[in-house]
């Protein structure tokens, strides 16, 4: 194809700078292709993460021209017409080096939000009977496909403004469990997501929904949590 891309990539840790690279433009080129080219041909010291490269694992999430995206599923032609690309590590997480971030906080908050299933049955019991048409089951289904890529967390302004905020992914997972009839941790989980660092801090900016590559809707999940928490408070169960 024609021309080159002017690519600006973050180099360094929390302190660092954007370095320029010239990458040949190709047909059907993804941003991951661009990063890979830089690392293999231009600067072997560039650090970045990827795994499946086909949009299934979420490892390659980075900020591309100011938006968090899966770089393996972002065609260059879709994000720039002038050939300029700015690639930075995911927002709201500590930078380890270059384009890699420390996901510890992200997953810690998952646990903090009660995002762990607590079984109530044993192998001696029969299967739980849950109809496909069950409303709660459908709510859980709507959010269950999350693979923990961190894009919603990067997109969320409340996460940026309130470091303790549990975040859309953790709360979305908590919601799927609130709707799981087999789970036995309901009361503790609601307590975990209530409060200024929990679901109540969400302003429904919907940055999470806007950017989720799996088209999940954490805002809706969080709205559901708000209702559940409010009902619990009114019933004196919080």
């Amino acid at each position: 194809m024609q021309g080159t891309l002017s690519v600006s990539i973050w180099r360094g840790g929390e302190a660092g700078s954007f370095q320029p690279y010239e990458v040949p433009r190709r047909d059907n080129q993804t941003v991951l292709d661009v990063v890979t080219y830089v690392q293999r041909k231009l600067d072997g010291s560039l650090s970045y993460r990827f795994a499946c490269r086909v949009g299934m694992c979420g490892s390659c999430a980075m900020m591309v021209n100011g938006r968090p995206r899966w770089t393996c599923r972002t065609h260059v032609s879709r994000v720039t017409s002038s050939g300029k690309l700015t690639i930075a590590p995911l927002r709201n997480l500590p930078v380890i080096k270059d384009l890699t971030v420390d996901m510890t906080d992200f997953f810690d908050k998952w646990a903090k939000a009660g995002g762990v299933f607590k079984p109530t049955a044993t192998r001696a019991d029969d299967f739980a009977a849950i109809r496909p048409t069950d409303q709660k089951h459908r709510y859980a289904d709507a959010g269950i496909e999350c693979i923990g890529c961190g894009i919603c967390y990067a997109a969320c302004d409340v996460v940026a403004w309130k470091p303790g905020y549990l975040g859309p992914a953790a709360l979305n997972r908590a919601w799927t469990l609130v709707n799981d009839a087999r789970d036995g941790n309901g009361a503790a989980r609601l307590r975990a997501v209530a409060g200024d660092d929990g679901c109540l801090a969400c302003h429904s900016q919907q940055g999470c929904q806007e950017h989720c590559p799996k088209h999940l809707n954490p805002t809706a999940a969080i709205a559901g949590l708000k209702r559940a928490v409010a009902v619990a408070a009114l019933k004196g169960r919080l």
Partner: protein
Amino acid sequence: MSAEKLQTWLWLVQRISASVLAVAVAVHLVTIIAAVQGGLTAAEIIARVGANGAWAAFYGVFVVAAAVHAPIGMRTVLQEIKPLPNFFVNALSALFGIGLLIMGLDAVNILYRLGSG
């Protein structure tokens, strides 16, 4: 009261006062827009609220709802602008609410009493 309970109740009170204000503000907007036709005079305001129990009660409820709603909102904004200690944020917001309540009810009372002549 645990922190979670307090935050949840604050959130609930915010939503409830919002519902009250939704009605009050709608009425207030229509009233202002109609009243401003042909120019607004002090006499007109006093004529509406003065010695009129219904209007005074309406504005009284309006003031209380606003004095509850605005500080809770400001509290959230304060928390997000700067990591200040919780006590400080809560105290500032509470003071703001009390101030609004006093000033607002005072104004309603004044206008109501003026109508009695």
